[in-house]
């Protein structure tokens, strides 16, 4: 091994060590390793020259001194930059937590309701709110459910002990029950407006169901109604498919199946491809790949007759969607009752 090679080896090793320096302590230990009087690499190099040929000694000594100055300069320069990163006067530990600002959330059912509203708003629907206490006429009779109609069993009703003032606009009979659906608003609107009609009506409704994972005696519903000349069931399909794909995702498949509601004819139940298994079958969809999402149909002519519309001239459709059910599916909440506990540990998971 010749001395120049030894010098180069030290130089390369030094550059690597210098590059690894982070703290002032690191820097000192590198200085000690290379320039230390007794143990330093440069001092060892000087010592080793004693064994070199006399003719070579001056050149070698010169080269060793150049190396020493070089290392010293590099260490000094690195030291200057280390000083630059030291904490300035008045500095703080930025990793400490900031002050918590109060931050409230909207209720998940409100979030879903507003999403549904905004999709229908873009399709030109007006958003209406109706009273929760209703009279029998608006909740049942005008919707083709006369007294003693068996379909009333499907909607077990809470009745008031005494009638109370009705909540609707204009002359309205005293309220005698808690509405079982928001459909009463359809009637109220049609009673006071001529077609075309394009409305949705969200709100809380009540059914005398014993609470369990999927039932709550109070829940939120949104009802839609579209009436005009030449409105068809194909329009109903088109509108609901657009809505469901906008709400869930563009790949959602939608299935319409015959059903029965007293206020629509023909009636349909609408299913979407299961959001949990994407249609392959799971426990939630009972291995069918489909989830029931809403009920709908063409407005029954008896309903038009009740509000004074000519059923020969006008056709229309209506649908009803359970906001709670959609929220359970969309947010994968397991128990509908959680929506009414208002537990902040649940509420605070939702966006502002």
């Amino acid at each position, binding site marked *: 091994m010749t001395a120049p090679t030894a010098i180069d080896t030290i130089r390369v090793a030094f550059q690597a060590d210098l590059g690894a320096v982070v703290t002032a302590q690191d820097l000192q230990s590198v200085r000690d390793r290379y320039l230390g009087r007794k143990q330093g690499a440069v001092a060892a190099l000087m010592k080793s020259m004693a064994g070199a040929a006399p003719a070579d000694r001056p050149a070698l000594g010169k080269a060793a001194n150049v190396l020493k100055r070089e290392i010293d300069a590099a260490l000094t320069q690195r030291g200057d930059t280390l000083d630059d990163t030291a904490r300035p006067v008045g500095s703080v530990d930025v990793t400490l937590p900031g002050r918590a600002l109060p931050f409230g959330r909207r209720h998940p059912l409100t979030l879903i309701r507003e999403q549904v509203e905004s999709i229908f708003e873009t399709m030109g629907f007006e958003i209406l709110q109706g009273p929760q206490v209703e009279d029998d006429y608006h909740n049942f009779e005008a919707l083709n459910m006369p007294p003693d109609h068996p379909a009333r069993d499907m909607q077990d009703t809470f009745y*008031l002990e005494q009638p109370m003032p009705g909540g609707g606009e204009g002359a309205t009979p005293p309220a005698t029950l808690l509405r079982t659906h928001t459909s009463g608003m359809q009637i109220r609107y049609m009673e006071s407006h001529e077609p075309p009609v394009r409305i949705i009506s969200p709100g809380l409704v009540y059914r005398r169901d014993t609470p369990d994972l999927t039932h709550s005696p109070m829940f939120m519903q949104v009802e839609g109604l579209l009436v005009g000349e030449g409105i068809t069931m194909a329009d109903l399909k088109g509108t609901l498919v657009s809505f469901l794909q906008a709400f869930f995702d563009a790949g959602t498949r939608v299935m319409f199946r015959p059903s029965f509601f*007293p206020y629509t004819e023909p009636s349909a139940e609408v299913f979407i491809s299961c959001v949990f298994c994407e249609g392959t079958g799971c426990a939630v969809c009972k291995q069918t790949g489909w989830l029931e999402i809403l009920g709908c149909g063409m407005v029954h002519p008896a309903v038009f007759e009740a509000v004074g519309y000519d059923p020969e001239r006008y056709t229309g459709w209506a649908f009803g969607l359970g906001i709670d059910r959609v929220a359970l599916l969309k947010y994968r909440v397991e128990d509908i009752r959680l929506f009414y506990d208002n537990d902040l540990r649940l509420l605070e998971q939702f966006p502002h």
Partner: protein
Amino acid sequence: MSWLRELVEVPVGPAGAGAGGPTDIADLADALTMRGFEVGAVEPWPTADGDPPDAVLDLEITTNRPDCLSVFGIAREVGAIYAAELRPPEVEPTVASAADTPISITITDPALCPRYVGALADVTVGPSPRWLAARLEAADVRPINNIVDVTNYVMLELGHPMHAFDYATLAGPEIRVRRAVAGERIRTLDGIERTLQPDMLTIADAERPQAVAGVMGGADSEVGDTTRTVLLEAAYFNPISVRRTNKRLALSTDASFRFERGADVSAPIAAIARARHLLAVIGAGRPRGAVVDCFPGPPDPIVVRLRHQRIGHLLGQTVDPAFVAPTLTRLGFAPRLETEGESPTWQVTVPSFRVDVHREEDLIEEVARHHGYERLPTTFPALTRPAQAAGGWRARDQTVRRLLTGCGFSEAITYGFVEREAALAMHVEASDLVALSNPLSEKGAVLRPSLLPGLVDSLIHNRRRERQDIRLFELGSRFRQGAGETPSLAVALTGAAIAQHWTGPERTADLFDLTGALTRLAEGFGAQVAFEAGTMRALVPGRTARIQLTCGAHTTAVGWVGQLDPTLASRRGLPGSRDVYVAELDLRPLTLDAFGRLRAAPVPRHPSVVRDLSLEIDDALPAAQVRGTIWAAAGPTLVSVREVDRYQGSGVPAGSVSLSVRLTFRAADRTLTDAEVQTATDEVVSALEQAYRAKLR
């Protein structure tokens, strides 16, 4: 399945994939489901060796289709789906002469019972053969004895409920279908003694009721081991009457379930004939005498006009006319072509079992069901007039939510009904409460007269789950007998206003955090809010204020804010002793109208001048009053008054408070001089001295 196959020629089964038929049971189940008969489950059913595999279809039948509460009804649908032939079940040939009528039937109220058919059979009571019992079991009907089983079998097969009386127990051959006499009693088959009312229909012998019509038979005429002769009944009872009776008696049976949905007025004869045939087939009995049919006024069949053009008009797709008539025919309708052509019309006679079909739309649904909803196109209805904006309530509610969530309050939704006691504890008179006549429990006995009981319960729910700092609000209806249903806002707050942080300790929330939030709320509507000391049930006296809202030109007392009575809070389950502050206000006066009329004022171009006054003043004097005096005295250049310090203690006499007020002066058109500001300040000081003997410190 085997029962169904008996009644309709559909080749179902692994080997039975015929032309146009289903490939297997699952395929058939799908086809029924897609036509409105949801098949909930297909359960394999054990069969004897060598027999084709069998299964039980569990179908969901909507309330409008009582005709399909039977195997034959479903067979008819299957026949329409696969264009397969129906095979009506075998019945007793009608041989007995009309003269041979051992019983007499009178109907005293044909409105409640338009038709009553009775016939006798001599029987040997015993167990049913295995095949018959197995079919009942498959349908979840418990086999009892061969006679009762046959009546149930006929009900399941044809959909028509039947009843069998032990003829020997009846007081003679006379059957009277009549209303009950008030107070008349009957012990029904379930062993319960029941008292009847005159609006209930009974089947009586010459002496007393032997059955509650359409609901349940009497125990005294029950068919038992000693029965030698039975009276078989097949009748049509008025659906509303049956429904009322079973509601009144709280007694729902397979029979009443079918009658209240609407039985087939034409079916009784077939049902009796089928039952007598089955009795003979299984060796349980043989007919005695003729079938007696009491049918005072047979109704005319319903005929509905169906226009092909209207089908397309409603569905949005043209359905082949060649599909329409045959489908209706297979479903039991009798369509008669009225006008031919590309878009024909039919006069369709509705069979008596289709109690749900009254008008053209009902027929169109039949066509649509069998055409297939999945084949209808998806189109989008054109807008024919501009969309209407939602009412002011929507922007109002959205603004309230935005403002309050911004203040750290999370939105709650609580039930519309509450405990009576909780309702009375907060804000309302008993006479103003709206009670439910059929609450689920006492916890929901009355409609909420205020949102506070529910919201406080939600706060407590969180407080009991390790949560210290809680801010909640709710927007919703409240219900009062006097005011009706009105929109309301409630807010509740407890815990820290400023959380503990490494820079400093927690500050516990107090009343002023809540009045501050309400002030922010008002500002968000371009409104002002003021608080006046007052007292209110459920709120701590001295820490309660009436909320005055000034929105536009109107000032309204909209509600209350204060500290919740700690005794009440702990009675509702609140742990610990931290204060809870609540507010509730009527939302109706809160509108965004102020912003609708908004005109921006010029931004001030001249500097303002600030003066701090330190006053010693009566500590009972409301700050609002002092502020009012300052505004009145200072003149037009005063632009703001703010209380910046309040101190009581050493150096301040008892009954007084040292109050520091910061006054800001500015003029729109000039820079104010020191002299001008001094004059205004002096006016303020002297007004305060005169009005309240305040002293400048």
